């Protein structure tokens, strides 16, 4: 008996769907439902239904508004810089061909480093007067003293500083994915364009980027989502400080849940975050990738 394509597709997706339902959806439903309760942080305490109170409290909280804004800024900084750098390096690799293989591996090193270590490492690189970066800048004559730039202690720039290790860690991901995509760009199209006298910028924006669209979409959306929920790396570098200037939503949700002992409010914040991400990603996904649609 021959099963239909549709049923075959369902069967193929079933195991992954079942897995995600059991280990993500179910916990998630419980998390979201918590948002409607005032919950004691210790089991056995009261658990009172409060309707949308937690959501209202979240929206009214200055901490939540500030963290939302910082999350957006952080995500944009990370994604834009990573994409620019990642595409640039991927193009260099592609231009150099097979001989760049060793360097491609070298470029992947940061990916192998645990975020816990990367966070600490960058804290050591950047921290005011102990940091090697300020020391090198001083030796190079760019800074007069090592305390001139407070990478992690100046609230105005700390959010950008904590983004550096994230960019360092995962630009390789974008490069790797884009490089793989570049390998599938038909050579004859490029050759033809070159013969027509197209310059590199034209080639890049008219041919390469449009052809890479699905791959770019995956890379950007995945990184955007991940950057928005960046957590351990910020936690370790600044613990959200100075003066809350690096407290993004994921840190705020985590803190509210464990440290501040308010799982209900944390769940409400998490739910709002999730809905916002869902809307943004849905728009992005259908605008640039269109998975499963007709090509």
């Amino acid at each position, binding site marked *: 008996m021959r099963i239909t394509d549709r049923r075959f597709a369902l069967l193929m997706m079933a195991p992954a769907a079942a897995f995600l339902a059991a280990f993500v959806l179910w916990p998630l439903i419980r998390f979201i439902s918590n948002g409607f309760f005032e919950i*004691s942080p210790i089991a056995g305490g009261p658990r009172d239904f409060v309707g949308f109170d937690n959501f209202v409290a979240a929206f009214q909280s200055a901490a939540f508004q500030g963290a939302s804004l910082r999350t957006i800024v952080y995500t944009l900084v990370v994604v834009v810089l990573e994409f620019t750098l990642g595409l640039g390096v991927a193009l260099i690799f592609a231009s150099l061909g097979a001989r760049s293989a060793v360097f491609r591996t070298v470029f992947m090193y940061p990916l192998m480093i645990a975020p816990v270590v990367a966070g600490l490492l960058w804290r050591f690189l950047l921290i005011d007067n102990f940091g090697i970066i300020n020391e090198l800048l001083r030796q190079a004559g760019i800074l007069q003293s090592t305390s001139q730039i407070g990478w992690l*202690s100046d609230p105005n720039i700390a959010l950008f500083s904590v983004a550096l290790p994230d960019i360092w860690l995962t630009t390789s991901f974008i490069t790797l994915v884009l490089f793989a995509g570049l390998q599938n760009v038909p050579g004859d199209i490029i050759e033809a364009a070159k013969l027509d006298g197209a310059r590199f910028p034209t080639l890049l924006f008219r041919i390469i980027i449009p052809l890479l669209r699905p791959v770019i979409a995956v890379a950007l959306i995945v990184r955007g989502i991940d950057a928005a929920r960046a957590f351990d790396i910020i936690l370790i570098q600044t613990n959200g400080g*100075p003066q809350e200037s690096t407290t993004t939503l994921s840190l705020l949700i985590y803190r509210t849940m464990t440290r501040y002992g308010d799982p209900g409010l944390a769940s409400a914040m998490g739910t709002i975050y999730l809905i916002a991400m869902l809307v943004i990603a849905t728009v992005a996904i259908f605008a640039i990738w269109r998975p499963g649609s007709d090509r």
Partner: protein
Amino acid sequence: MLSVTALALTGCGAGGGTTGASDDELTVLVEGGGLAELQPIADLYKEETGTSVKLVELPYDGLYDRIQTELGSGSVSFDIAALDAIWLSAFADGVQPLDDLFTDDVKSDLFPGLVTEAQVGGNYVGMPIFTNSEILYYRTDLFNDETNKADFEAEYGYPLAPPSTWEQYTDVAKFFTRDTDGDGQVDLYGTDVKGAVETEWLATVSQAGETTMVLDPASGEVTIDDADHLKALDFYTSLLPYAPAGAAQLDWAGSQNLFYQGKLAMMRFWGHAYTQTPDDAAVKGNIGAAPMIAGPGGIAGVPGAWYLSVPTATTKSEAAKAFIAFAYENNELSVDTSLGLVSRISAFESQAEVEGKENYPAILETLNSPATYARPATPQWQEIVNTVLTPMLQKAVEPGADNAALLKEAKAQIEAIIK
């Protein structure tokens, strides 16, 4: 959808008891320091009773999050947890009373601050296994130098010695802040000022004579903007000219680092570090220890104790309590660990004349001082520290800060947190 939600809600109570470890095994969650302290006690316990005690080491913040998650779920994978003093009130509802263990003998052998701190809501919820306190570290080579002695006395009119008051501390810090190699850059500072951690300022608050640090958890009254707090903050920041730049980001590790490199003449730091000076430290062999300095209110530190607590949800309550009693009895075993801290006054006193343990009398005197108070017992303490106290200090160590205004702002923020 409704039925799914209902299912989700009823499902919350699910989950079994302790993991299927055998009866003669106890699992204890500890931080790195607690691991070192408890290992010899656990070894002896195994030897004497046959019960093996598994010490699970977790990072400081991770330990809190792990315990919170498990207590929140109502089923636990551990039988005992080592809790930092400031966590006690947050976890009090999830742990068992240990009142039976707190006999009069026990209470009289513990620092008064610890006995108070161990009590949350009328019950003793944790047994202190070791306690720390900040003491004063100073460079013996600098203080014993004849030229320095003469110069200091000539300038300030009294002999150079480890300072015991705020005024002396300021004088000595000012005296040692200098350019030692003549390159025009200051390379030795009298002291440090820590902006990224709050405890040292809290000790200063007690030194100022404050009896209600930050807030009174019972009445909900926030005292952080009163005269004593302001006095403490003014003194704390008055030391900035004699401290290296970057105070806003300076934490414990950073400060210790500066001291070991020989950049500081004095440092207020936790007592355990005295026996842990690295061999390659520039100041190795030249470090002295003295009690914490005194303000108008007297000598004061902040007790940094760790407590053993038993979660309500464990099935091995009796075995867990038996181990805690044993740990108290054998508290002195911790003296020779890498951390070398204990909790019993008798254990501290046993080292009184021992060479290389000069930090013990310093800790003892600081913790026995009537001006020393424990931090307020409120479940929101961590939140107050993270969102109010540390940011406030970081602003206060910036040039031109208005301390009174910062404290007033902090008061409003704390009131919003404790509602």
